[in-house]
């Protein structure tokens, strides 16, 4: 197996996790930047539609490094698609696969289930809730919390910040509740 073939396989947690952790010192050493992605959503608001909202009245251009970083993440996704794509379907844990099959989700060829996340589905209630309402909560919640998985769970915890630990626990608590109680109900919708 050559190196490219090996890279195309899904990476185990003990390879990916430490590499993600190294993003923290990389950004600090490259220019005193603290790792975080969700602030970009705020910079985009400040750049495109600040209206007269004080929260968006700041010099977003000083934060442009963060938009370069986010643009890089998008490009990284594209590079992985073009050159490093795993040809095999995503291997899903048996219990989850069985449960999802009950909702008609059996296609694991992509990283996101094609039966749910597609353009036509935006017009269904199920798709609208998952993609549009879900997205809204991601944007609203991360800013309300002052950070997301990168800014709080990884950067904040790396710096041993108690507020970040509280935020991370709440991310997980909210996710546990929704994934187990609410998401199954959404997935059962037939329209």
């Amino acid at each position, binding site marked *: 197996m050559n190196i490219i073939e090996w890279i195309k396989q899904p990476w185990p947690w003990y390879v990916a996790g430490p590499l993600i952790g190294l993003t923290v010192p990389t950004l600090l050493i490259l220019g005193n930047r603290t790792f975080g992605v969700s602030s970009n959503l705020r910079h985009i608001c400040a750049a495109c539609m600040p209206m007269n909202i004080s*929260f968006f*009245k700041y010099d977003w251009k000083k934060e442009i490094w963060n938009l370069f970083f986010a643009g890089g993440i998008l490009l990284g996704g*594209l590079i992985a698609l073009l050159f490093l794509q795993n040809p095999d379907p995503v291997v899903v844990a048996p219990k989850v696969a069985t449960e999802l099959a009950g909702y008609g989700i059996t296609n694991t060829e992509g990283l996101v289930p094609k039966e749910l996340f597609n353009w036509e589905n935006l017009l269904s209630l199920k798709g609208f809730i998952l993609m549009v309402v879900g997205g809204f909560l991601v*944007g609203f919640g991360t800013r309300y919390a002052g950070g997301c998985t990168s800014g709080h769970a990884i950067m904040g915890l*790396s710096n041993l910040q108690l*507020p970040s630990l509280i935020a991370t626990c709440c991310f997980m608590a*909210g996710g546990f509740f929704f994934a187990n109680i609410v998401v199954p109900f959404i997935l059962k919708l037939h329209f």
Partner: protein
Amino acid sequence: MDTATKNFELKDLDTDFEMRNQDSINRSEIDKPVLSNIKFMITGILFGIILVKSEVISWFRIQEMFRLQSFHMYGVIGSAVVVGIISVFIIKRFKIKTIDGETIHIYPKKFNKGQIYGGLLFGFGWAMTGACPGPLFALIGNGATVIIVTLFSAIVGTWVYGLIRHKLPH
């Protein structure tokens, strides 16, 4: 800018720790050319590739995590935090400087109730979309084009937060 507006903004900034941190962090580099940010784009590219190849941007992996059916996500986040803690410790202990010779500052985060309420709301969204902000960008690049709508919706969510934040408990 008239004095009234300025006072209002200062008052506002005072409660907005994120903004104050951002202002003080980057003051030293205002004069750098825009293209000096390419290094952050390259870091982003590597980060994006890791997000895709570790499948942490997969909706399936997120469902497994919240149903306790796989160790993968816990392993990724846990080992990332351990490496992050060690890195930050080394940077502080040995007073490592940036490539431009500046002292590295990491500003502490202050607690406010937003971390609870906002954290829970984000958790709801994370369980539904299977993506946090970083993965939204990676998924779009990776060909899940409909996630553009989810990203747009997240931007709208941030905007609405900015609009009503004064009425929310913090």
